[in-house]
């Protein structure tokens, strides 16, 4: 059996949420039917199962897929397990013993092919999303199968990096299955069982899309109560998520310690998040009067644009700052 799943899955589950061994052994005892996955195009009617850990907390979705992809008279059977997280983000796939994936002319996938397929399925922005079946091969260049009486075209040049060579239609079908309606269905199901534990799990994900899904479920009050935890999330997230959390932060916090903690984040931020941070603390008076004085020790590390914005806000909101410091900062 091959195991080609995202490193992040292990990373994700290892630490806090689930026993990695149980996952890799795919203990079905913790998984039960969630809903049916239907695809008329590939005659797929498979069950999407939701899996829970020993504490009955939902952890992921999985499906045993059995689909057949045919084109140009050539068919490939795809029997495999597919995994999604609770926000419907692709996590990985697994083959099933005795059912290797095959390419053109029934050649078996190599190790590299399995890895490439995983990489393809991870790529949410793949060019495959913009193409139709007919765009996949260049029919002007044909090749004949030796095992059956069929001819197919050569892989279209622009997509060579986006498919497993010799398994173009399979790559395409699986990508569209992963990023098709199943994602919305999973999200809808998750919202029905949504809980703090689910939210925490998604916020702790390394997948920005899943984090964003969880952040979008939060009300303004949730942001207030959850911010101590969000500080941790913010520190370990990508700039896009950092900036999103900063833009949603309920400023100023009622807890002065949190205000100080928020300011101390600044030096750790990337340039994008820094810019969002500066905008947040210089736009509204009630925020500026709390945060700009706290920023005084950090003004010297601001770039010229950030400094200009802060100094303008000091002036606009009549927040005390010494002329001597202004001159010193400008000279720097």
């Amino acid at each position: 059996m091959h195991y080609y799943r995202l490193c992040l899955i292990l990373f994700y589950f290892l630490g806090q949420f689930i026993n990695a061994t149980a996952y890799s052994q795919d203990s079905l005892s913790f998984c039960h039917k969630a809903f049916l996955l239907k695809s008329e195009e590939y005659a797929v009617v498979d069950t999407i199962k939701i899996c829970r850990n020993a504490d009955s907390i939902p952890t992921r979705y999985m499906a045993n897929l059995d689909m057949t992809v045919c084109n140009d008279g050539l068919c490939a059977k795809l029997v495999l397990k597919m995994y999604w997280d609770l926000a419907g983000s692709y996590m990985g796939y697994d083959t099933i013993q005795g059912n290797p994936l095959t390419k053109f002319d029934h050649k078996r996938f190599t190790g590299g092919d399995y890895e490439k397929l995983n990489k393809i399925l991870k790529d949410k922005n793949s060019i495959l999303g913009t193409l139709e079946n007919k765009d996949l091969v260049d029919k002007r260049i044909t090749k004949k199968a030796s095992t059956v009486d069929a001819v197919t075209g050569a892989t279209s040049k622009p997509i060579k990096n986006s498919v497993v060579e010799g398994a173009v239609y399979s790559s395409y079908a699986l990508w569209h299955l992963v990023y098709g309606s199943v994602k919305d269905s999973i999200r809808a199901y998750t919202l029905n069982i949504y809980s703090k534990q689910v939210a925490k799990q998604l916020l702790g994900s390394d997948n920005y899309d899943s984090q964003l899904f969880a952040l979008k479920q939060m009300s303004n009050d949730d942001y207030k109560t959850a911010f101590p935890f969000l500080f941790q999330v913010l520190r370990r997230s990508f700039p896009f998520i950092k900036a999103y959390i900063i833009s949603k932060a309920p400023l100023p916090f009622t807890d002065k310690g949190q205000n100080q903690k928020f300011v101390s984040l600044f030096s750790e931020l990337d340039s994008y998040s820094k810019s969002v941070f500066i905008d947040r603390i210089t736009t509204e008076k009630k925020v500026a009067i709390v945060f700009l004085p706290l920023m005084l020790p950090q003004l010297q590390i601001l770039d010229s644009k950030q400094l200009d914005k802060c100094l303008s806000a000091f002036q606009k909101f009549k927040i005390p700052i010494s002329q001597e410091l202004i001159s010193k900062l400008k000279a720097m």
Partner: protein
Amino acid sequence: MKRSFFLFLLTTVLFNVQAQKNNTILIEAESFAKKGGWVVDPQFVEEMGSPYLLAHGMGIPVQDAETNIAIKEAGKYYVWVRTENWAPGKWEAPGRFYLSIDGNRLEKVLGDQNQLGWNWEYAGSIKLTNGDKKLSLQDLTGFEGRCDAIYLTLLGNEKPPNEKDVLKKWRLQMNGIPVTPDKVKKYDLVVVGGGIAGCAASIAAAQKGLKVALVEDRPILGGVASGEIRVRTLGGYGKFEKILQAIVNNDYFPNGSNQFLVDDKRRQQNMEKYHNIDIYLNFRAFDAKTENQKIISVDARHTSSGELLRFEAPLFVDCTGDGWIGYWAGAEYMYGREASSKYKEAWDKYGPLWSPETPDSITLGSSIMWSSKNAGKPVGFPKVPWAMEIVKDYAASNGEWDWEFARNDLNQIDDAEAIRDHLLKAIYGSFYNYRQQHNADSLQLEWVPYLSGKRESRRLVGDYIFTFNDVLKDKQFEDAVAFESRHVDIHYEQNLVDTSKPDFLSQVMFFVRNRESEIPYRSLYSKNISNLFMAGRDFSCSHLGLGSARQMRTTGQMGAAVGKAAFLCKKYNANPRDIYTSHLKEYIDLINADAY
């Protein structure tokens, strides 16, 4: 158009913008009679005050630039040079050079001020006798040394002004240049910006008999599709295939190909066939005079000689990309990303990467594509410590469209030079790393443009704002004049969601349309400036609307559409809006009748 070459020659040979009172001399660097290997960079005039000379040698020092000045009063001159250290830090500045006067090199290395931004650098003093003296700029690095102006004075060692507005006035005063151009050119239509949209607008109007001025600040036409930037024109031909095929023919080669140079010649030849189009190359517009919300004239300055021209016409087309004509005229404009709720443009698949919950100042980025080649023998390439903070260990031997830079705190107009320089650092640093990591000591840079290929900046507001929602709803317009079927194409910086990636690579998000989208005529003229058309990336659209219609063939359709509309404006002595309100059927019939 032959006139344009004549003007170019004339200005190059005869003019040298040298303002001289007996005891002070100001020389604009871009007016040097012999540029050597230095190039005139006019991209950032509005930002830093002037075109300037750039030593763009891709790491190999360029040939000296030279000019003569006449000294009328002998004495000890104090010499100041306006320069910029574009990467200050704990290293030798990348763009260093010397100034020599009358064969004597001033000791001070220039371009190495330890501060960011343009400033006057004191080069030293020199005793000069009366008579002609040769000035020369000697590049030391090939890494974008830059010289804006040289000032010699007998009056004591006082630094010239540097604050933007003060400097502008001082320059005019020193150069004795009138604020108002005394040469006036009159046309039926003035098109500013010679990219694909501008060329198409000019041809469409000229075909209908209008006398057209096409004003372009580069020595060639084509804009982002020219051999200077080399981006292929995607999108559809709509109803203007014949016009567009006369000015673009790049289906058969990739981005960055040398074949773009061939296409430049073909475009120029085809444009010159229209004897009622006067092409003013190397003229950069700098002002638009308006009365009662109507543009009366546009002023332009030659990027080397400084010659001023005023263009008067009843109608103007803003194809500048940055919407400069509209901006100067007081046209309403937009910048950055609208909140997703404003035009109902949200797409859950990408959330705020696609459109934000609240407006922000993110735009599509600017690109510099580049290439390298095997020299067949070991060649050197210097260390570039000033680039390493940006590239870290990232290595590359060429760059495509996805070498793109935008940041929410950098404005594509006000910070355009910083954006261009960031991309240059990315290129030089990544290339240095590639040579090191792959022991590629025979690899040399082949092509690195110094012009940024911009995707987005100001968008002027028209009677209609085209949005992504129009695409989502497959909206059809009675005044549809341009058509787009390619996917909506929006980008974000990769490192927003993957910090292992550098900040100069972008990721595309494609939205596949259900059907061909229609772009209405009402998004091609200004809402509040009565005689202003716009075509190109500054047309009236939301950020995502631009992503839906920004391909250059599509913007070319826009240009051709306004060219046709200009004809009807002349016929009926009407404004652009009147064509929609009173002559729409005739206008659409005209486009359909001429469709090819």
